[in-house]
Structure formats: C-alpha cells, structure tokens
C-alpha cells in the first residue's frame, strides 16, 4: 500500500484548518457585530437614566439596573477580597503540604467548576429564606461571594506562586519576619496578578445571571438600600427577552454589557503588560 505523501497530508490539513478557523472566526466576529449593530442605536442618555417599567411592557431604560449592578459588585468585592486573598496567602505561605491541605485544595478546585445555579439554590435556601434577607442585593452579593471565592483563591494563589522564591528568601535573609516579607515583598510583586484576578471576578459577576435570578427578585425599581431587591443589567436582558418583546432594548443592554467586557479585558491586558515591563525592568 502506497504511503500518503506527507506534503499532501499537509496541504489537506492546512486547507481544513484554514476552513475551520475561518468559519469559526467569521461566526464569532459576526455575533459581536450583530449585538453591537442591533443594540448601539438604541443607547441614548434617556435610555441610561430612565427606570424600566418592568412587567410586560418593556418601556423605560436601564437606570435602576445600572445602579443595582454597581451596588452588587461593590458589596461583593468588599466582602470577597480579604477572605479570598487571605486564604491564598495561607495556602501558599503557611499551610503544610499534608493531606488536609490537599483535601482543601481539591474542594476549592471542585467548587470552582460547580454550576452557578447550584450556588443560587444554596443562596436562596440560606440567605433569602433561612436568614430572612429576602430578595435583596445583600442575598445576591453573599451568593456571589460563595461562587467567586474558589476562583479568587486560585488566581491569587497562582499570582503569589509566580513570585520568584529568591525574593522571599532575600527578605527573610535581611531579618524581616514572615509577615513583613509577605506584606512588603511578596504581595507587591503578586499584586498585578491578584488585581487581575479581582477584575476577572468583577467581570464574571457582571455577567452572572443564574444565581442572581433566584436571589434578587427581579424587581425593576430603583433600589433604595442593600436590602432592596432588584435586577442587574444581565438579568434585565433576560427579563426583557422572555417577558416582553422589547428585543431592541434587550440588545441595547447587551451592547452595553459587551462594552463593559471590552473595558475589563483591556484593563487586565494593560495591567498584565505593565507587570511584564516591571518584571523585566526591575529584576
């Protein structure tokens, strides 16, 4: 049996790959363009500052959703950062390499992959019902904290691990205590990675729908406190799409979310790039 010429295989493979790649790229780009093209025309100042009517009508804008989203993200990050980064510091600096530590790491990795609706179920049962926080931004934030904790721990761990060990050894050799080394040597070096992780958590929280759908209540009114219910922009897209036929407004909200994602991505890339420069420039 004649052996197939490797050059032929290569040509076939290259064609297939270019084909697959081109089709994929086209579809993906088309989606982004579709969302922006259909949504951007409907964004104006009135849209951003009017409260949505809620219910079936689809009238109004998205002002309350923007405020709710901001409150929610603020509260979530405020609660999330210290336990998350603290746990990462503990795991990398203080914990011994024995089976409890490995079991804990396994639990964290597993929970990082659990669907967000499961966290929503948990949040609904615990925060909304048992603890009587009711449908509120508080319930939503606490649920988000549970959801994002494993992710933040993992990314912070990675960032801390990426700090070259000789930095820590240098600090200790100079007579600093362990905590002084952590605070003044390791953390500043790991800070860009940690901040990137936090920003990624923010991005994920902004787009999160499933666990907030069941803990925040879906009211379209402007929230008056952290105990008010409400809907985030992502949830608003869902309600507009399913309850009303205001698809243009849904697309407009979606377009705003896409722009937010672009900003977040650019921010993380900029931080990562500065981190690279700093590493190369300083060391």
């Amino acid at each position, binding site marked *: 049996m004649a052996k197939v010429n490797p050059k032929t295989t290569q040509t076939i493979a290259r064609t297939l790959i270019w084909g697959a790649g081109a089709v994929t790229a086209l579809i993906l780009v088309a989606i982004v363009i579709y969302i922006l093209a259909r949504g951007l025309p409907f964004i104006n100042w009135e849209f951003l500052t009017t*409260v949505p*009517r*809620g*219910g*079936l*009508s689809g009238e109004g804008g998205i002002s309350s959703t923007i*405020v709710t989203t*901001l*409150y929610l993200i*603020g509260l979530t990050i405020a609660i999330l950062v210290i336990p998350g980064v603290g746990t990462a510091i503990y795991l990398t600096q203080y914990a011994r390499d024995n089976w409890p530590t490995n079991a804990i790491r396994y639990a964290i990795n597993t929970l990082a992959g659990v669907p967000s609706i499961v966290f929503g179920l948990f949040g609904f049962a615990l925060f*909304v*019902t048992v603890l*009587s926080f*009711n*449908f509120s931004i508080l319930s939503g934030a606490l649920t988000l904290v549970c959801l994002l904790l494993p992710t933040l721990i993992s990314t912070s761990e990675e960032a801390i691990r990426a700090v070259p060990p000789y930095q820590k050894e240098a600090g200790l050799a100079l007579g600093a205590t362990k905590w002084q080394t952590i605070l*003044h040597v390791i953390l*500043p070096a790991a*800070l860009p990675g940690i901040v990137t992780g936090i920003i990624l958590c923010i991005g994920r929280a902004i787009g999160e729908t499933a666990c907030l759908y069941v803990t925040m*209540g*879906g*009211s379209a*009114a*402007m929230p*008056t406190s952290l105990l*008010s*219910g409400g809907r985030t922009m992502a949830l608003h897209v869902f309600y507009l799409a*399913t*309850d*009303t*036929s205001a698809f243009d407004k849904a697309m407009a909200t979606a377009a705003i979310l896409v722009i937010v994602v672009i900003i977040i991505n650019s921010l993380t890339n900029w931080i990562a790039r500065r981190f690279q420069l700093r590493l190369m420039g300083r060391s």
Partner: protein
Amino acid sequence: MAVKNRMRVIFLVSLLVLSLSLTACGQPGTTPSNAAVSGLSGSITLSGSNTVQPLAEILANAFTALHPRVRIVVQGGGSSVGIKAVNDGTVDLGSSSRELTASDPKLVVFPLARDGIAVIVNPQNPVNNLSKIQIRDIYSGKITRWSQVNGTDQPVTVVAREEGSGTRTAFEEMIMGDQPVTRGAILQSSNGALLQVVRADVNAIGFISFGFLADKSVKGLSIDGVEATLANARSGAYPVVRALYFLTKTEPTGLVKDFLDFCAGPEAQKLITSEGYVSVH
C-alpha cells in the same frame, strides 16, 4: 514605591466607593416636591402570579399617585411563588390566579377580580373554534396534527406554563380534568414568554389570561362557540374563568390594608374592568 502605589490604589478605591454612595443618596423621584402630600408612607413588596402582575402594577401606580410617599414593588414569579413568598415572609403581599389547595399554607384571601383564560393560536392559523374536548385532547397528546381539528396538516406545538403557574392549574382544573398535560409540551415561565412562542410559531397553541389578549399578535379561540370576550366572561357563558386573589399571611393591617381597601373601591374597579378583567366588588 510599593507603598505609594498601594496608597494610590486605596485612595482611588475609596473615591469610587464615596461617589457610589453619593449617587445613591441623590436619587430623584423618590421624594415629592409638594410639601402638602397625603400622610401615608412606607413600602409594600408584592410577588406572585404574573397574570395579576400587570393589573397589580396599574393599581399600585394609581395608589402611589394618591400617596406619593408610598412605594410598591411588584414582582412576578407565578402563583405558587407568591403563596410561598408571602408565607415565608419574603414579601408583604402575595398574588395568586388559582384557588389555595389543601397542600398550600393557610393564608388570608382577598378576592381581587375574575379573569378568563384564553386559548390562543398564531394569527395565521385558520382554526377559530375548538371544543373543550378537542383542547383537552390536544394538550394531553391524543391529537397531534392540526388537520385532525380542521386545520392545516402540520404538527401541533403544545405550549403550556410551568407547574407552579396558577393559570396552568386553573386551566388543568377546568379543561384537562384528570388528563395530564403531554410530556412534550414546551413550558414557559410567564404569560409573556408563552405569548412569544405562540406569536412566532404558526403551529403553536397556548393559554394566557384575558388581560394579555389586548396584544393583537395572537388570536384567542372560541371554546364551543363562545368567543373569548370580557362580556362572555362576565356573563358566565365563557367556560374558563377563575378568580384572582391577593394574599396575606395574617389579617391585613396598616399600609397593606389601605392598599387592599383601595383595590376594593370604585376607582380601582373601573381600572380593573378597563384592563379586561371582571370586577368582583
């Protein structure tokens, strides 16, 4: 240098937090400028049937027009959500479009209005009338093509609400009897979502509250020759009519009682009728 950067970050973050809290304080529209306003103030949260939801919103708007310092937040979710939420204390007022059953918690019931359930099809569907038995057979899966009921030769897309829906429970009681809804039925979580499917699919059949029929994008069928109109619902000729309720955990007091009294009053009754529901007070 590390310390300076950190201070900068902390400063920026606190600035952001400060500006956020300031925007929250200065929200327009929650305090009226008129000094001499009505004395009632406070807030009511309401959730439950999304059949009742648009009606509740209209009544809430009328009530807050009279008492601008009152805030009423209306949510949906379905009748069973309302029953559970008001029983759990998650909301002040629940709403339901079905009767409370033995397995439901004991709640205080306030009859709000009566409402017909319309069986709807796509406007392009040639069928205009079905008998109760035909509807039942379609929903139970016995009839699978429109040609079996004098329509086109296309498969029927059965659309229903999820099981917690009061509209669905009422529909099952009055039309299905003991027959269960077919497994292949597409389930949607709200009247609006169900409307959308029927609006888009020529072969779909669904059921919604009369109050949603004003949307001319779907066609309401006559049942056994009786048209789906408000007059027929009021007279009792239309077979599928059920009561809509507000629910409270205990006897209503305070602001909730004021709101319920308002809903029983003449102005509210006029609103109810004009929206396509049958008034009961």
